């Protein structure tokens, strides 16, 4: 049995999305900027319609939507673009310790170029305190970038509150909402953000296409210079099919939002309660409230995450881990460390993220195969020896 439990990493593409894209992968191959002939106008109109759909989905205006080549590019653009554009005003950026690497590594790069970055801590559930944001503001602060929802432990941040703070201090506010679409209501007005990043493949759209929302009036430097596409702000021949796919996917995701949330939360909660019940020495990482409806994250003491993933894979279950080994890096997940987990516990983490095609059977299956896997690894673990002995 094959069970896909890594929807925070990527999602399958919906048939409706592919169907919407196919004309632009076949006959309608025109360049979206070639307006002097029909096949180009058809492509251009498709991009315009897509822009309109995206704008509506997030409560923005059509001319506030810029298509990019990924969520990462959108994050890089927002942060570097703002930093470079405002460099005469200041050099201080506020973000958090639990951002995606697309934000963190961009900020670290800017640190090498004379910017100063405050990486705000989070509480044990991964929550940022709005007060901390306000207290971190200096007269050099030019940008606040705080993610809408965390990709590892699902924490949903108090973006609207932070948005008010940013506005009252007249500081640009960017949010990485890559994990949010289809999982919580995303409305740029309500959130009070100046910039917002999206990535299609996280909500059943194609890979390699994203969006940066930039509020009208906000001026940031370009990241990708060249032709006049995207109203002169993001050059490159438009990825027409990808853009159309993104729009179809966000349309479906937002149309069915409430239903989706209900369905995904149900599976997530079954996983959480089932695993906590069946497996000892296990903790849930991240909050129980204000949590992404599709994300569950656990730490299993005395075992290491990559081994769990490998044994799950042998059973046909696809999942991910914040273990250092699994990521190929040296330290376990910065998010798990930021919520205060010791390294050894962070190494034993497992993220299960449900999706649109998750079934009760999938959940049953995971609840069936996971406990013996943990059991088996613990039986091999020198750290567990003492625990067993103490118990017996």
């Amino acid at each position, binding site marked *: 049995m094959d069970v896909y439990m890594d929807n925070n990493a990527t999602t399958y593409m919906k048939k409706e999305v592919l169907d919407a894209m196919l004309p632009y992968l076949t006959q309608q191959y025109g360049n979206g900027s070639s307006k002097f002939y029909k096949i180009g106008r058809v492509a251009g109109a498709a991009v315009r319609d897509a822009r309109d759909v995206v704008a509506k989905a997030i409560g923005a205006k059509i001319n506030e939507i810029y298509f990019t080549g990924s969520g990462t590019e959108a994050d890089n653009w927002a942060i570097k673009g703002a930093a470079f554009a405002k460099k005469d005003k200041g050099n201080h950026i506020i973000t958090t310790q639990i951002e995606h690497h697309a934000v963190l590594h961009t900020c670290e790069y800017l640190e090498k170029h004379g910017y100063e970055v405050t990486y705000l801590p989070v509480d044990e559930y991964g929550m940022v305190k709005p007060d901390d944001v306000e207290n971190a503001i200096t007269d050099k602060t030019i940008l606040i970038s705080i993610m809408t929802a965390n990709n590892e432990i699902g924490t949903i941040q108090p973006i609207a509150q932070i948005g008010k703070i940013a506005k009252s201090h007249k500081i640009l506010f960017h949010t990485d909402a890559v994990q949010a679409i289809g999982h919580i209501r995303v409305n740029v007005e309500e959130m009070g953000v100046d910039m917002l990043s999206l990535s299609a493949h996280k909500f059943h759209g194609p890979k390699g296409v994203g969006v940066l929302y930039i509020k009208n009036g906000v001026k940031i430097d370009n990241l990708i210079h060249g032709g006049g596409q995207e109203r002169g702000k993001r050059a490159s021949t438009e990825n027409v099919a990808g853009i159309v796919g993104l729009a179809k996917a966000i349309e479906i995701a937002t149309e069915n939002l409430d239903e989706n949330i209900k369905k995904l939360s149900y599976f997530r909660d079954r996983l959480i309660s089932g695993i906590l019940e069946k497996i000892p020495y296990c903790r849930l990482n991240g909050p129980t409230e204000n949590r992404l409806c599709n994300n569950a994250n656990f730490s299993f003491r005395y075992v290491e995450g990559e081994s769990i993933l490998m044994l799950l894979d*042998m059973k046909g279950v696809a999942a991910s881990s914040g*273990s250092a*080994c699994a990521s190929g890096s*040296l330290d376990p997940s910065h998010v798990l460390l930021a919520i205060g987990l010791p390294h050894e516990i962070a190494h034993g983490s497992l993220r299960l993220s449900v999706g649109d095609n998750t079934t009760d059977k999938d959940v049953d299956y995971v609840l069936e195969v996971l406990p013996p896997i943990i059991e088996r690894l613990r039986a091999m673990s*020198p*750290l567990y020896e003492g625990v067993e002995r103490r118990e017996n």
Partner: protein
Amino acid sequence: MYSEKVMDHFSNPRNVGEIENANAIGEVGNAKCGDIMKIYMNIEDNIIKDAKFKTFGCGAAIATSSMATEMVIGKTVDEALALTNKAVMEALDGLPPEKVHCSVLAEEAIHSAISDYKRRMGLSDEEKNCSGCCGRCKEENE
């Protein structure tokens, strides 16, 4: 990413467990780094009669523990000391670059167990200079 041999030793690890009354026990690595290997041996007449392991760590850590214990069983102490991490890797048909440290850990675990044996036997006061860690944690993040 892993060779078939690695997958085989990971999914059917040889020599998992403890040896009661082992006369050589070595433990290397630490939980912070995400790998601990503990090797138990029974050494008689300078020959490794039995070896078992317990490992907390990734697939490669488990597979190298399994392979290393298998390779030293039946060997003399000196032969076992001559076992290099390269030999373990080769026996596993290679490891991805970021997993080479696991084979180093296996070599060190064998050495550590044999040092323990020598100490117990009063055969040597020479302490094997093992950090208890493969050094990976200190490597620079490239």
